[in-house]
């Protein structure tokens, strides 16, 4: 047989098409697609990279246990590069082109609000697994990060007890910082204290010299700092450099969430008060096993932190929901999750609150000590009462609001 170029090309193309297409089509029908949308680079990558690793770890565990409904779970992940504009773009991609079965992701509250409407509109189940300002009431969305009533309500009286009644607030200037600052004000007043000043900072501000002088003119006993991201880390450095650490006590609702206590030196960090669901120092069998599995999967890495663990909890909660529903369809999974599903994770027991789609979980009051978070007191199984006060999805399943605190 004479083999000319045209025939060779035609035959080759046909072979390639059959070889390339067939198995992929078969696979796509088989796997469950899990959309992950996280900042794996840029100034918020200290949050996002470990969250991505937590996603991989949780999915590999789910698959090792036989997958869900006998099907393998496949991650469809996008890196949003700390750019809020990319969130809406990739949310469209995940929901309209990749047709994923569930989306886990979003880090900053601004990014959550950028993608949540798309998830709702396209009927894609959505998990936001990050500590945040509370109040989101949306039946399509499940949230298992701590809210102000779980965190700030515990942190404020503890920190005021360690220092005094006059409080100064330094917060990040976007929805998280603005709303959290109002919560702090509320809890300071309820505990008989007084807020002597509030300042907000855009996310790229890194010079806090004049702020530190201004804080001193107000002479507070305590500074509470819901500051976010790499640039704001400078505040804690400059605060220590000015020798303020021994004069005015410092607490934060965000520092340590991205393992910042390991970036600050012991002299800069020691004594800063925080309250979270997770610390690497938690001495529970679940956490020890979790850290070992993590190290094994990522070559000895130990970068897990608060919101990476939240992401891990969120994924396993969703998997439990799918198992219980015995379906991957959105409504059966939501209804299964609303039966108060619980999991035991590295951060303790986490239970879905059916009324708000938030989580009931443990919160630990902690202090930074030698680049670790030392647990001072554990407050078991706290309810998200801030959101419960305004949100009842059982009574109003069509609600789609983020409620904000009012005075």
């Amino acid at each position: 047989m004479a083999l000319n170029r045209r025939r060779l090309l035609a035959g080759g193309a046909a072979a390639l098409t059959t070889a390339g297409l067939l198995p992929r089509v078969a696979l796509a029908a088989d796997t469950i697609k899990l959309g992950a949308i996280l900042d794996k680079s840029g100034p918020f990558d200290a949050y996002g990279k470990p969250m991505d690793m937590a996603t991989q770890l949780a999915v590999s565990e789910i698959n090792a246990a036989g997958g869900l409904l006998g099907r393998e779970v496949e991650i469809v992940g996008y890196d949003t590069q700390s750019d809020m504009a990319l969130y809406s773009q990739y949310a469209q991609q995940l929901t309209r082109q990749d047709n994923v079965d569930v989306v886990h992701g979003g880090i900053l509250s601004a990014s959550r609000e950028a993608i949540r409407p798309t998830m709702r509109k396209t009927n894609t189940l959505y998990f936001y697994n990050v500590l945040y300002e509370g109040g989101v009431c949306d039946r399509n969305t499940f949230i298992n990060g701590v809210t102000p009533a779980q965190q700030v309500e515990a942190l404020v009286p503890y920190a005021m007890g360690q220092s005094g009644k006059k409080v100064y607030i330094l917060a990040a200037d976007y929805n998280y910082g603005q709303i959290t600052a109002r919560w702090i004000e509320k809890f300071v007043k309820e505990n008989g204290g007084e807020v002597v000043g509030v300042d907000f900072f855009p996310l790229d501000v890194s010079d806090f010299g004049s702020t530190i002088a201004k804080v001193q003119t107000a002479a507070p006993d305590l500074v509470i700092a819901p500051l976010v991201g790499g640039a704001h880390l400078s505040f804690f450095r400059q605060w220590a450099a000015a020798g303020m650490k021994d004069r005015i006590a410092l607490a934060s609702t965000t520092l340590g969430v991205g393992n910042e206590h390991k970036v600050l030196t012991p002299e800069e960090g020691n004594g800063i008060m925080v309250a979270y669901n997770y610390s690497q120092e938690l001495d529970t069998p679940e956490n020890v096993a979790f850290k070992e599995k993590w190290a094994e999967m990522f070559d000895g890495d130990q970068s897990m932190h608060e919101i990476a663990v939240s992401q891990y909890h969120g994924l396993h909660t969703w998997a439990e929901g799918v198992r219980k529903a015995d379906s991957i369809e959105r409504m059966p999974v939501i209804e299964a999750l609303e039966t108060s599903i619980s999991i035991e994770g590295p951060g303790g027991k986490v239970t879905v609150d059916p009324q708000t789609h938030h989580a009931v979980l443990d919160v630990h009051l902690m202090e930074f000590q030698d680049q670790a978070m030392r647990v001072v007191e554990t407050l078991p199984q706290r309810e998200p009462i801030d959101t419960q006060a305004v949100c009842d999805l059982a009574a109003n399943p069509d609600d789609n609001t983020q409620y904000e605190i009012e005075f």
Partner: protein
Amino acid sequence: MDLTFVILVEMLYAVASLVLISAGLAVVFGMMKVINLAHGEFMMMGGYVTITAVGLGVNVFIAMLVIAPIVVGFIGLLVERLVIRHLYGRLVDTMLATWGLSLVFIGLATMIFGNTTTGISTPIPGFTVGNYQINGYNFFIIIVSVVLVIGMYAVLRGTRAGLIARGAMQRADMAAALGYSPDRIYLATFFAGSALAGLAGAVLAPLVGLVPTSGGAYIAKAFITVIAGGPALIAGLVSSATSFGLVSQIFTFAISPVIGEVALLVAAVILLRAMPLGITGRFFRGKL
């Protein structure tokens, strides 16, 4: 009284840090008319060089004041040889090329150091003024920038090399006719500008959390300062840094840091509207 002193120090510090971040750009843009959009990344590299050197056990002051400027200066040398020298006189092309370079440097730094925040703590303790605590490092920055301005003035005014450099910037063909190679002079000037950027990044490193994208935070302020300064290199740098530093600090103390930043930008717009050639286009004419 104490407060007055604290505010005064903060204002001086604001002016000094503007001088510091703009000095390298002022040399490269003011003297060579090259718009170096990678200026912020040169600063970022200065910071990383310092942190790396300190990690290797070098004294922090030697790392900041000697090693960082030299290393970044040599990176600048490479950049000038490989890219910039082909683009002299082509303003838009240099902008595009240096913007590309800035992306390359961010990428390289990300590969080498990882895209996470790093930093070192300040080597100078804070101290007390009456009822207030001040960051002792502020004084270090003020001193460094004063020495820097005096040093630049002395070199440009007092040495033969400075004279030749200034001559070549005004009329390169004339300098060449007199036997000085403009090529070499541009090379040396770009080295100096990069080294200054490296120094600024190094000295500011202990105050900030450093990420590969840190340079972006400086570039706008540096350009505003240099352009509002106008044609005179040193007089322009000092006068515009002083105006912007004072305006931003006054509004920061009176209202809030955000308004301080806004005030700086508004001041820049008004200033450039009133004096399109910059401050030294109207005042201090003919000065250095």
